[in-house]
């Protein structure tokens, strides 16, 4: 196979990378703002069925609906759940626009559960407020989004993996270089603004099953955006605040506090006793979960066997038709029936995800990263606990702001030397006759993450982990791919590898413990607000290395009183001890 020197270049105004949840909304918002702008949605899979909601979603976890909660209540709840380390302005903007987004989706045909009076049927799952809105028919949401893309004439380019963001000589983002996953063709997309919506980094750790693709997140969300952000020089934040979620043992789908909780299901220990007061996901809740899992009353179970037949049927309908519908098949294979016994639970591998924790590419309340012209939304961007609705709201914010940013801008001059050297680097595994298969390289990196980087975090272990990962850098020039598909995996593996190193560097920098299990640093077991009440930003040094610095917390826009600050510290049921 020979490499042609003709790399095709396509010009567009706004490039959106990732067509899952935030991406389609960003594309529609950009078109609504400026119908004349050319907008391209680039997707590694196919926008019809891509991302975290490929099979739909069973509910909104964070709906701020008038009459049930106020944006101020919500900002407080998320500030407390995240131990104070939040860009409150960013959370507030989400909360202010949350209800309007629900109404927009409703008008597009997304069905939200309503009560007998026609009002949204809100459920309480969080520790303090009421924010959960079920979507029992949420399986069709991707279809609804796709229809909107067609209507707004958004250009869709499927089966291309974005690999590096391009920058012009003034430091603005000006497009990306991408790899075709079917034909191994390298293309350049030149744009006046770029919005990254690449989802969580869900393939950093290894699931307990050992199956590389049995991850909590859709495994196509492997951290492409996190790696691209680092390489282009954008700051990432909170990477030490890992995502770790409760799930059904071996079936890496959510164990569904949000679905079963409002219907009477709960998390129990082996004795069938409740041990946490609130199943809403926070680091503190995960710490209690982990302790119970490791302790004499473990493992942990999802308890539904006390519920009435019709309630169980309702739960089965939602859980087995939405979001992760192969769950019923998984239970059938083991002869598990919710009516008869509790279902074993476990915790997920680590990841970066702003949807459930706070780790990701830094964005402000306008969706801007630290690189001009580069925006981020959804699970990869840093607004904490934002879930699906947050992805929609920030997708919309990014689309609107990018449409304004491009006004009067001319196409940038491309750095051809960088592009050709990247092209050669991207295609190199295909040029070799033998070497290290991407699956082995990936397995090794992810196994090292499990061995040395997942909590409880210990300095010496993280030192060894980072040292072993750095030794793997010498393996990269030996990666070997036999076809375009394996080349995709080889490039994904390098992004995963970057994320693994970032997890170690950020974790070692924050010398305290915070967010319960997420950053349970054994050498520094206490939370230290004097020195560490700040964001930790990871960035690329002039030499190309990973480094961290502190970023002060912006002044709060919603104040907390002292009693509220500790609400999430007292989650353990007292009787359970």
């Amino acid at each position, binding site marked *: 196979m020979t490499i042609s020197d003709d790399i095709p270049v396509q010009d567009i105004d706004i490039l959106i990378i990732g067509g899952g949840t935030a991406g389609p909304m960003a594309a529609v918002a950009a078109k609504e703002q400026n119908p004349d702008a050319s907008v391209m949605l680039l997707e590694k899979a196919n926008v019809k069925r891509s991302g975290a909601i490929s099979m739909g979603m069973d509910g909104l976890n964070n709906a701020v609906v008038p009459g049930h909660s106020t944006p101020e209540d919500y900002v407080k709840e998320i500030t407390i759940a995240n131990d104070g380390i939040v860009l409150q302005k960013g959370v507030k903007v989400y909360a202010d626009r949350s209800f309007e987004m629900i109404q927009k989706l409703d008008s597009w045909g997304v069905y939200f559960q309503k009560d007998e009076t026609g009002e949204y049927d809100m459920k309480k799952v969080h520790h303090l407020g009421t924010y959960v809105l079920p979507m029992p028919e949420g399986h069709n949401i991707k279809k609804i989004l796709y229809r909107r893309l067609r209507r707004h004439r958004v250009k869709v380019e499927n089966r291309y993996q974005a690999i590096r963001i391009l920058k012009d000589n003034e430091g603005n983002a000006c497009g990306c270089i991408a790899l075709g996953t079917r034909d191994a063709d390298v293309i350049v997309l030149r744009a006046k603004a770029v919005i990254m919506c690449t989802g969580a980094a869900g393939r950093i750790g290894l699931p307990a099953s050992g199956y590389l693709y049995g991850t909590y997140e859709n495994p196509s969300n492997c951290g492409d955006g996190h790696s691209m952000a680092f390489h282009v020089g954008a700051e990432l934040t909170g990477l030490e605040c890992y995502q770790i979620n409760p799930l059904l043992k071996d079936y890496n789908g959510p164990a569904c506090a949000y679905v079963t909780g409002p219907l009477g299901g709960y998390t129990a220990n082996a004795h069938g006793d409740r041990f946490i007061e609130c199943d809403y996901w926070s680091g503190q809740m995960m710490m209690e979960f982990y302790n119970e899992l490791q302790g004499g009353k473990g493992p942990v179970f999802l308890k539904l066997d006390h519920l009435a037949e019709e309630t169980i049927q309702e739960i089965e309908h939602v859980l087995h038709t939405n979001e992760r519908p192969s769950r019923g098949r998984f239970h059938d294979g083991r002869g598990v029936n919710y009516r008869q016994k509790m279902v074993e639970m476990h915790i997920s591998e680590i990841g970066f995800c702003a949807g459930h924790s706070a780790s990701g590419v830094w964005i402000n309340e306008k969706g801007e990263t630290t690189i001009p012209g580069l925006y981020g939304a959804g699970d990869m961007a840093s607004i904490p606990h934002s879930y699906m609705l947050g992805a929609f709201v920030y997708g919309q914010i990014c689309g609107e702001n990018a449409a304004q940013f491009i006004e009067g801008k001319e196409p940038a001059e491309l750095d051809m030397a960088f592009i050709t050297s990247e092209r050669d680097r991207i295609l190199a595994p295909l040029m070799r006759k033998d070497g290290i298969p991407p699956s082995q390289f990936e397995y090794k990196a992810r196994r090292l993450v499990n061995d040395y980087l997942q909590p409880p975090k210990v300095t010496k272990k993280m030192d060894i982990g980072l040292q072993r990962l750095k030794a793997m850098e010498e393996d990269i020039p030996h990666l070997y791919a036999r076809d375009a*598909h394996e080349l995709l995996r080889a490039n994904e593996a390098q992004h995963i590898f970057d994320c693994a190193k970032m997890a170690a560097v950020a974790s070692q920098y924050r010398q305290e413990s915070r967010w319960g299990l997420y950053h349970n640093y054994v050498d520094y077991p206490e939370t230290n607000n004097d020195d560490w009440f700040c964001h930790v930003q990871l960035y690329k040094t002039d030499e190309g290395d990973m480094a961290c610095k502190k970023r002060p917390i912006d002044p709060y826009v919603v104040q907390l009183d002292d009693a509220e600050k500790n609400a999430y510290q007292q989650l353990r049921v007292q009787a359970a001890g």
Partner: protein
Amino acid sequence: MPTASQISMVPVIVDEEKCIAEKGCRTCIDVCPLDVLWINEESGKAFMKYDECWYCMPCEADCPTDAVTVNIPYLLR
């Protein structure tokens, strides 16, 4: 660096009687988020080429002839 191939039991099964890929249908191949379904050059039918499955089910749900079945991968069963 010599390499070897290992066999793997794959979770997605395509019923070749029902599959109409030889008539140009590419639905399951198009919707797979992991891009692991391909055309078998000999039979013209779809099959799972790479054992990299999230058992997410768009291939099964969207197949116009009900030819696709998604099983839970063996390691998870």
